[in-house]
């Protein structure tokens, strides 16, 4: 890393202000003015629109394996999704995914 101390703090400062402004944007500026129904409808899909796209490359091409698909991680991801769908509970999905991940990585290390 070849940045001066000033440059690093500049990055931190700009990201802090920029991130806050992004988060504040609509909530701060629009306030209680009504929003168009179509916009509200679109926004209801925000979480299912953002998170799967964010996760998919991380599942298929994990950086930790140099971008090569990894069986233990794939199975752990599938388990998380299946348990989450079945139980409708975030924590159960997370716990079973982590257990399967470590079991898979443990087995891979043994074999």
């Amino acid at each position, binding site marked *: 890393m070849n940045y001066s101390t000033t440059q690093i703090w500049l990055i931190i400062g700009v990201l802090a202000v920029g991130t806050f402004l992004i988060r504040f944007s609509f909530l701060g500026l629009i306030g209680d003015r009504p929003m168009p129904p179509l916009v509200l409808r*679109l926004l209801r899909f925000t979480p299912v629109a953002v998170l799967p796209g964010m996760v998919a490359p991380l599942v298929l091409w994990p950086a930790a394996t140099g971008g090569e698909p990894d069986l233990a991680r794939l199975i752990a991801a599938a388990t998380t999704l299946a348990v989450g769908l079945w139980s409708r509970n*975030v924590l159960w999905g997370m716990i079973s995914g982590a257990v399967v991940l470590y079991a898979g990585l443990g087995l891979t290390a043994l074999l």
Partner: protein
Amino acid sequence: MPTSTEKEPAKSAYWAGVRDGAPFILVVVPFAVLFGVVATDAGLTLAQAMGFTVLVIAGAAQFAALQMMVENAALPMVLLAALAVNLRMAMYSASLVPYLGPAPLWKRALVAYLNFDQTYMVAVTRYEARPEMSVDDRVWYFFGVATPIVPFWYTMTLVGILAGTAIPDAWALDFILPIAFLAMVAPMLKSLAHVAAAAMSIFVALALNGLPSGTGLLIAAFAAMITGVVVEIWQERRA
């Protein structure tokens, strides 16, 4: 709401938020430790790594910035990559407007600072399930959700910084994040429209994976939101 909670609604909404936020300590701890470890490894000082965690308070963007800095990217590219990853929060911000819009400015500003993936998901799930909540209750619920999460985010980053590189790669901390996000998404796939939106998001994000960090995701998210609405309207016409 049960009658027992009507006496001091704001207070009980706050504690309900604390309860609902608490499980996410499990998600935040490995992620925060990992950031501390990686930031130290990359050459940031303790103050700089903590500056990221406290001032930026956005895990994925912090990792994106760090990655670009390790590659010695030009300053504007570092900033663009990290801010692009955070653009999804503009959508979070917009989707909170119908619930929190009438709240006082300082409360909205504080919610904005605390508005990240976990707090947003938990809060919106509750707001959708309980349309009768008052604006004040919603704000206090949001603060409640953030209360157990944020201190762990700060302190566990510090632990990661101090632990440095002592944590072996075999722990696969990198994959805790995808598992956490998948666990959050699964219960949301409650209709064909939601499933279609998720599928479109995955398809477009994978297809555009080569674009600069965050850009493909943004396009994927817009395509997915439109897909969700189109499928929903189509289903309503058929019904």
